[in-house]
């Protein structure tokens, strides 16, 4: 009763409507589809699809294949790392776990160096370590294949150094290497943000009590950084599970993401969609949620969307000793520079005539010309822009409403709203796509909402839901800097809550809203999961990222397909860079948003 009185006292009609709109959007296009995704296979009256999960290709025990193969190649030996095939489900879990562990180790190492040491070349390192976050849909993984895969650069490099062994990665091993390189900066940036937020006096107090060096690090620094580490590791696990690029590049079909996408692309209507891939998408969702709940104790989603501005205080920074210097220049530097290779490689592909041997050859603008005069690409680009703009309208509404409510209303249950609107960051996009597909494909068959007829609408909604957390967080950060009394003063002088929102709050946080919107827009433009699944169902309405995928998988565009795809992605990188620089400038963030 008291709670009800509080609610009616707090809300006015427009604000209540805005909340209702936000809740309906999230219910209709996130909660319901995902529930349907889990429940639908259970209502199929058939155990068969579930039993399929225990058979090849979903389960393969004992595993097939070899961990590695060594072959004689005349003067040298070729070590080919493969990884065994345990079946779709176990492969996905194995890859995600391995990538998470590796990324976490590297991420913590680099974060420690960056947060605690000052050394020549640090700026270069900082820039290079953020490079991998520039999103290179699909193409980045193909560059990594060129480097680590069959006859790749690494092998050639080892031989040219005179080593008797050349190493190359293929299959699951290759996927693990590629994903680690793509994803470790997520752990790094989150950990770094945590480390910069540690009050230096906490470490100084420990030092004062005799703790130093590694023991100080182990007992104080690391535990206090745990929220960042857990957040980063959580995201990496989820990203790895739904990543499509690395398995495609290294020709691994037996992972969940590839199965889902291939099956959707092959289906002409909802009946042709195999129940077993619906189960797989549900499983993907449950695994992501399970993992998230496992680490939730350490993580608040607040840290997901963007990194807080580090350093409210002057952080502790040291000159490295000899040992640490060695670590920095011989381990951290190569590691970080190496990780920027996909982005560099995209430009090499985009501007080179061919790249068959070890190094790319010839310089040309032809790929850009070819891409921009391709009707499909131009239409895809136009579609992407329209969808992203439409999504942005929705994003601005739900982003401002939910962050305002969460930051200003002291009501029970408001944290649930917070969790709901931030949850898309932790939910695999492929599960969302599949959920939308089955719910609206089945219940709204042959209506304008049917994704097989008219995917554009669901794409817009999909973009809005998936990319809104960036705006929500940016607005939230702005609201935290606006003193509550400024709004109270307005209400005190006769302005309703909604009026206050428009005359006081929005003018004050306008820049945050713009910056957040910019990021949401750019990530909508480069969105993959719903774009290549839902978006592919009607070619006329397919967005740009679908055509990148199409170039790479169908050999569309002839032998130059990687060069053409790279040209598109190179353009996307430039747009992303501009957006990130601009919004960082506006928001004064020290670090970029996480690229998702």
């Amino acid at each position, binding site marked *: 009763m*008291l709670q009800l*009185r*509080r609610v009616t*006292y*707090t809300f*006015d009609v427009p604000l209540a409507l805005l909340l209702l709109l936000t809740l309906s959007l999230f219910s209709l296009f996130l909660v319901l589809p995902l529930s349907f995704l889990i429940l639908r296979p259970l209502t199929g009256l058939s155990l068969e699809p579930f039993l399929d999960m225990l058979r090849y290709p979903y389960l393969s025990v004992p595993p097939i294949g070899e961990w590695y193969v060594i072959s004689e190649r005349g003067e040298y030996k070729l070590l080919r790392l493969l990884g065994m095939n345990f079946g779709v489900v176990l492969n996905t879990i194995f890859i995600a776990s391995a990538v998470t562990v590796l990324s976490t180790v590297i991420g913590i190492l680099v974060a420690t160096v960056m947060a605690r040491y000052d050394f020549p070349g640090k700026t270069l390192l900082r820039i290079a370590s953020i490079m991998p976050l520039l999103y290179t849909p699909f193409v980045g993984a193909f560059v990594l294949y060129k480097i680590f895969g069959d006859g790749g650069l690494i092998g050639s490099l080892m031989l040219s150094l005179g080593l008797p062994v050349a190493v190359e990665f293929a299959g699951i091993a290759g996927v693990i290497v590629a994903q680690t390189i793509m994803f470790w900066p997520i752990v790094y940036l989150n950990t770094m943000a945590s480390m910069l937020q540690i009050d230096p006096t906490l470490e100084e107090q420990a030092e004062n009590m005799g703790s130093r060096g590694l023991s100080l690090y182990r007992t104080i620094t690391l535990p206090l950084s745990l929220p960042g580490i857990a957040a980063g590791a959580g995201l990496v696990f989820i990203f790895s599970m739904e990543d499509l690029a690395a398995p495609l590049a290294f020709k691994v079909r037996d992972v969940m993401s590839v199965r889902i996408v291939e099956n959707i692309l092959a289906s002409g209507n909802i009946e042709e969609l195999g129940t077993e891939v619906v189960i797989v998408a549900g499983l993907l969702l449950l695994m992501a949620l399970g993992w998230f709940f496992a680490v939730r104790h350490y993580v608040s989603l607040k840290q997901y969307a963007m990194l807080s501005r580090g350093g409210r205080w002057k952080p502790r920074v040291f000159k490295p000793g000899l040992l640490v210097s060695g670590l920095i220049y011989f381990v951290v530097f190569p590691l970080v520079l190496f990780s920027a290779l996909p982005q560099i490689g995209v430009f090499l592909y985009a501007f080179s005539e061919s790249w068959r041997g070890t190094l790319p050859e010839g310089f040309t603008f032809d790929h850009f010309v070819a891409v921009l005069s391709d009707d499909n690409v131009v239409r895809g680009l136009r579609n992407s822009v329209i969808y992203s703009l439409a999504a942005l309208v929705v994003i601005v509404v739900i982003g401002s409403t939910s962050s305002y409510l969460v930051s200003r209303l002291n009501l029970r249950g408001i944290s649930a709203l917070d969790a709901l609107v931030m949850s898309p960051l932790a939910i695999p996009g492929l599960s969302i796509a599949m959920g939308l597909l089955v719910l609206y494909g089945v219940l709204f068959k042959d209506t304008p909402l049917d994704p097989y007829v008219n995917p554009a609408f669901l794409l817009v909604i999909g973009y809005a839901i998936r990319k809104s957390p960036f705006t929500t967080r940016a607005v939230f950060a702005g609201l935290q800097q606006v*003193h509550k*009394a*400024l709004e*109270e*003063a*307005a*209400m*005190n*002088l*006769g*302005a*309703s809550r909604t*009026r206050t929102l428009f*005359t*006081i709050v929005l*003018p*004050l946080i306008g820049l945050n809203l713009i910056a957040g919107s910019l990021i949401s827009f750019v990530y909508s433009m480069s969105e993959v999961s719903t774009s290549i699944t839902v978006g592919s169902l009607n070619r006329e309405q397919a967005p740009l990222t679908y055509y990148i995928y199409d170039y790479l998988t169908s050999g569309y565009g002839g032998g130059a397909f990687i060069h053409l795809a790279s040209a598109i992605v190179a353009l996307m990188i430039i747009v992303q860079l501009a957006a990130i620089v601009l919004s960082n400038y506006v928001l004064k963030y020290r670090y970029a948003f996480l690229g998702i």
Partner: protein
Amino acid sequence: MGELVLERITKYYGQFKALDNVSLRINRGEIFTLLGPSGCGKSTTLRVIAGLELPEEGKVYLDGEDITLKKPYERSTAMMFQNYALWPHMTVFDNVAYGLKMKGYGREEIRKRVKWALELVGLSGLENRFPLQLSGGQQQRVALARAIVVEPKVLLLDEPLSNLDAKLRVRVREEIVTLQRKLGITMVYVTHDQEEAMSISDRIAIMDKGRVVQVGTPKEIYHKPTNFFVATFMGRSNVLRGVVKSVSDGLYRVALGKASLYGMAPGERPGIGEDVVVVIRHEAVRRALSGEETNVLEGTAERVSFIGLALQVKVRVEEGVSIIGYLRGDEEVEVGAPIRVAVSPEDVKIYPFSALED
């Protein structure tokens, strides 16, 4: 216009009871001050009046109308915030005009009223400045103008002077009083500064731990504190431990170690043999006249400090019993010399010992 009644207000912040059964009656046209240490609930009381906090229990009446469930923007209460809460994206004019716009006044009317309010606070000519271009004192006046321009029934001021320097504080508070008298508006004023409260208020409510512990005029509060908290909160006092030896006619004899004093119990009445605390203001302790015998304490001067108008002396009466008092500034006292001090029985206030544990 502007009679405000709070009836048994209780307010929780989570588990924390910020207001505990607070009842107040604030008369129209008076300056009523809520005084207490930080965290006592005085600001919360103000926010409940403004509608910025919804109390769990109790009612708020303004001119007889129950406004408990009225939203902040539906009440005729204007508040001046501690940090002024001036909108940085609006000029002085727009800040002051905001409330009038919300009330739907016409352009010309708004211009006239804003001009009037700015003249009243002495800020004419600064209409087009932004808040960040103003000094602290000027910002304070804009906030005041913004609150009075809407002609509220009740003006609420939340520590309005705390961000000003000491000299400006005294000047501005005089101005606020003058303004209030001129407008005849009911004013509720929150402060933790007792001198400020004493100098401006018609009546004061002392608050402690979410409760109102005493309401009265500044003189009543100062001279007749009904409990230990008020007695020690107002002014500087000696707090001594004693035992009641005898009572007659409301006059208590209390033993402080070997010595004893006569005093009064303004609040709860302790019985004979009961442990009590004795509160004596520093300025009530004076040098005893020669031949004076009643309520005299003999001891040695333990510490002597010259503080301008007076000489502050700490007199050690016996082990564990010391008392601070004031002598005239031109008197001479040597540290270690014997000295006799006296205090009138009405200045010796006795409270039950349990008050100390509160």
